[in-house]
């Protein structure tokens, strides 16, 4: 299977381990990722928080490049997914926006939906049977809090999620890897997102609460799909909190027995070794 691929800025910097694990896991699943050659930044929170034109214009440029490739495009970063999907939604449902983008970027939008959240694509299109087939080391000793956060989930009419309060895709995936997803009430709470730098104390509070709730629910670790959440949950946490946080593709890599997995985990700011020994003991 061939898919267009939008890595987004963080997968080449703060979330390098996400970038490498996405590529390895897709390879293992026989998914050929073709990086959009000239992708640009989606504008992230800063664009839509301050300028509605920039918030559509920047992702629309990438959508133009996607259209030229004529492939479904997967986006691992929840924030990039949300911005690209919102632009796609606006261009499809609002003729004025579409025409403005076509004029600005000098192309004709064909209206085909192409933007997919990588996690949802894996679970729904590649499918759990194909994933289960690749599992060599089931993560059977692990209790996992699946953390979805905001941007892959809300608003539902744009993201297409089944439930904004209790989404289940990541839970199903984790189960397919042999682990046990825990029931907890903070799976869609916000980590503080883009305010990490300018309002760090506030973000520490929000992230700390999420980790504490995961612990309370009996989880050994938190798994997520967003580079921003990963950074906040690892970097902005109260002193003494040692709950490890993983990207879902890293857990897939471990369960698939991919040997480079160690290199990804080295990049974590919070030591994941306790969890790893539980897997090895399994």
């Amino acid at each position, binding site marked *: 299977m061939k898919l267009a691929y939008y890595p987004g800025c963080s997968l080449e910097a703060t979330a390098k381990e996400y970038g490498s694990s996405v590529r390895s896991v897709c390879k293992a699943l026989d998914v050929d990722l073709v990086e959009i050659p000239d992708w640009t930044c989606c504008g992230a929170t800063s664009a839509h928080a301050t300028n509605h034109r920039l918030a559509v214009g*920047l992702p629309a440029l990438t959508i133009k490049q996607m259209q030229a490739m004529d492939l479904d495009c997967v986006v691992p970063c929840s924030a990039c997914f949300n911005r690209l999907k919102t632009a796609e939604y606006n261009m499809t449902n609002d003729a004025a926006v579409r025409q403005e983008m076509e004029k600005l970027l000098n192309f004709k939008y064909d209206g085909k939906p192409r933007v997919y959240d990588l996690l949802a694509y894996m679970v729904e299109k590649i499918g759990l049977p194909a994933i289960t087939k690749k599992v060599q080391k089931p993560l059977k000793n692990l209790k996992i809090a699946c953390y979805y956060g905001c941007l892959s989930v809300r608003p539902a009419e744009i993201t297409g999620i089944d439930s904004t309060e209790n989404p289940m895709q990541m839970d199903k995936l984790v189960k397919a890897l042999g682990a046990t997803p825990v029931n907890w009430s903070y799976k869609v709470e916000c980590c503080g997102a883009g305010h990490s730098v300018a*309002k760090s104390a506030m973000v520490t509070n929000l992230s700390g609460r999420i980790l504490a709730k995961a612990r309370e629910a009996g989880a050994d670790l938190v798994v997520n799909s967003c580079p921003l959440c990963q950074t906040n949950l690892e970097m902005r946490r109260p002193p003494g909190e040692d709950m490890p946080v993983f990207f879902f593709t890293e857990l897939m890599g471990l369960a698939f027995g991919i040997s480079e997995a160690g290199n990804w985990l080295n990049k974590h700011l919070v030591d994941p070794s306790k969890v790893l020994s539980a897997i090895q003991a399994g």
Partner: protein
Amino acid sequence: MYIITEGGPKALDLNFTKEVKQRSGQEIELCFQCQKCASGCPIAEYGEIDTNQVLRMIQFGLKDELLKSKAIWVCVGCETCGARCPNGIRIAAVMDALREMAIEQGITPGEKDINLFHQCFLDSVKSHGRAHESTMLIRYKLKSGHLMEDVGVGLKMFLKGKLALFPHSVPSKTEVKRIFEWARKK
């Protein structure tokens, strides 16, 4: 019509109400103050106005009070409020519209650092086509004066190879510049 505020009677500025409605595409008059938005808002304790009050103040046309507030800046855009609003009002889109209006009117942001961070991030995208964390953060630090914050964790990230030293520039940079120019014209 007038409304009595802490600062005395004030004329309702219904043009403001209309403008926020139009920019956000949200039917603000549907809000009946059930407070579901505010009760789930993760940053409720950090702003001075609750989410439901923001809606009420728009209905009353309290422009200055809103555009100068902290509340519009601390909103993280998590969309929790909108997902739960029984009337389907996307309050995050309303907050986006309020911030944009405050910027256009040159109002000093109620939370200076947050806006500064956004502008430094966007400057980085404008010059390279992609966000470059190191140069963006240095710029933010110099401009905000928070020079020593996060130095330790920054170093840790650098040692783990998570902060690229040099920006990656994309070929479509000229198109990106054009998008910025178009977006910022009035």
